[in-house]
């Protein structure tokens, strides 16, 4: 089992979609939201994914395919 901390950033069109609920149902993953900021047209959620590493990878790929941006928790780390 593994844990991964990720940040999901939702575009306007997906704000009303229960993406995190679906992620937990369609993949063998436990989702644990730690911090979030969601407005009517935009939102981000910082959460921990708990599960088998291959399942986490599959789940993250699916979330990206839905149109959600997925980043590591510290944000972009490339600088210069």
């Amino acid at each position: 089992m593994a844990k991964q901390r990720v940040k999901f950033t939702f575009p306007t069109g997906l704000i009303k979609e229960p993406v995190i609920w679906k992620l937990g149902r369609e993949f063998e993953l436990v989702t644990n939201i730690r911090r979030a900021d969601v407005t009517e047209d935009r939102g981000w959620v910082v959460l921990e994914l708990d599960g088998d590493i291959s399942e986490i990878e599959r789940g993250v790929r699916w979330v990206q395919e839905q149109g959600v941006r997925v980043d590591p928790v510290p944000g972009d780390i490339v600088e210069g």
Partner: protein
Amino acid sequence: MSFAKSLKCRECGRVYPLEPVHVCEFCFGPLEVSYDYDALARTLTRERIERGPPTIWRYADLLPADPDAAVDIGTGMTPLLRAANLGRLLGLRRLYIKNDCLNPTWSFKDRVVAVASSVARQFEFDTLACASTGNLANSVSAHAAKAGMKAIVFIPADLEQGKIIGSAVYGPTLVSVEGSYDEVNRLCSELSDKYPWAFVNINVRPYYAEGSKTLAYEVCEQLGWRAPDHCIVPLASGSLFTKIYKGIKELAWLGLVDWRHTRMTGAQAEGCSPIVEAWERSSFDIRPQKPNTIAKSLAIGNPADGYHALRVLEQTQGHGVAVSDDEVVEGIKLLAETEGVFAETAGGVVVAALRRLAHEGRLDPDDVIVAFITGAGLKTQEAVVNQLPPPLTVRPTMASFEEALEERTGALPASRRG
């Protein structure tokens, strides 16, 4: 000595001991170094700083690393130039250029990596690592060499040759990742969980970021212990911008400079300007972007400190400015032709933003304005190579030279013989 006392979560305020951690276990917020400011106020004086070495380590009291164990390659105390020529052109009477091209690996990254590598060694890491598009890779490789540490540096496969050599010469394990910058980031984030390496901008990031404050300390000291009225700073993750402001505030809290309500202006390239875009919407909500600009050292689509940079912009009534790639090139040439400083693309962004603000009358001509030039132009020659006239090619004769010169300039200069 260092007066750092703990790490504190910037989101929920939880306090942690000074250890190699970067994220709050509770809310996953970023951690920041806290200092014992009461003890600092009793100890730190201008004279104490002035007696220190001519490097960033003269400010060791305000950094989270033990100066006696510092990894020192001579970083800091770079020139603060009175930019009279550029100032005249832009109608600014007291314009200064902080020329951080003159650090050991030719960018301001030496400041942050000096602190990160010193802390990493104190925490007994034997390997220094990073993901980078150039400047950071160069600095990590150099500091690891000096510290006697191993270096493992991850770069995207399409990086320019000059930047690869600027790292490879120091002997790191250089890993060229076949993927985008985003993919290099993600790989490094996963690796930092698995391997006991000090990724300077991941697991020792709270310490690393503090190194940027030394830019503010130096500028204030070089201005004769005076805070600037206005700073123009490039924005990438937003970390440099917020730390320069933190540095000025710290000096004011400690009574080393007067508080002048310094205005902080941030500059980005249009092809990657998520912070300026949010500022223009009067929002604190960053919309991540896919970078597409020649200013690669600023090309961070989802800036980790974007929110905090927006807070500083608002608090100080600064400006957010995004400039086109053409303006970036013009900015590089303008700085070179007026002040003799060859900056990389991030410097072009700053000068272009400065020029835009001056032309729009948004700068006070009598303010002490400092433009931060954070990296040297030799690293990004590709940006200007097609914009410069080729050299005059002549045969080794007077006639050939004069013919070519006249063709280029339209006339020959007056000769000695009249």
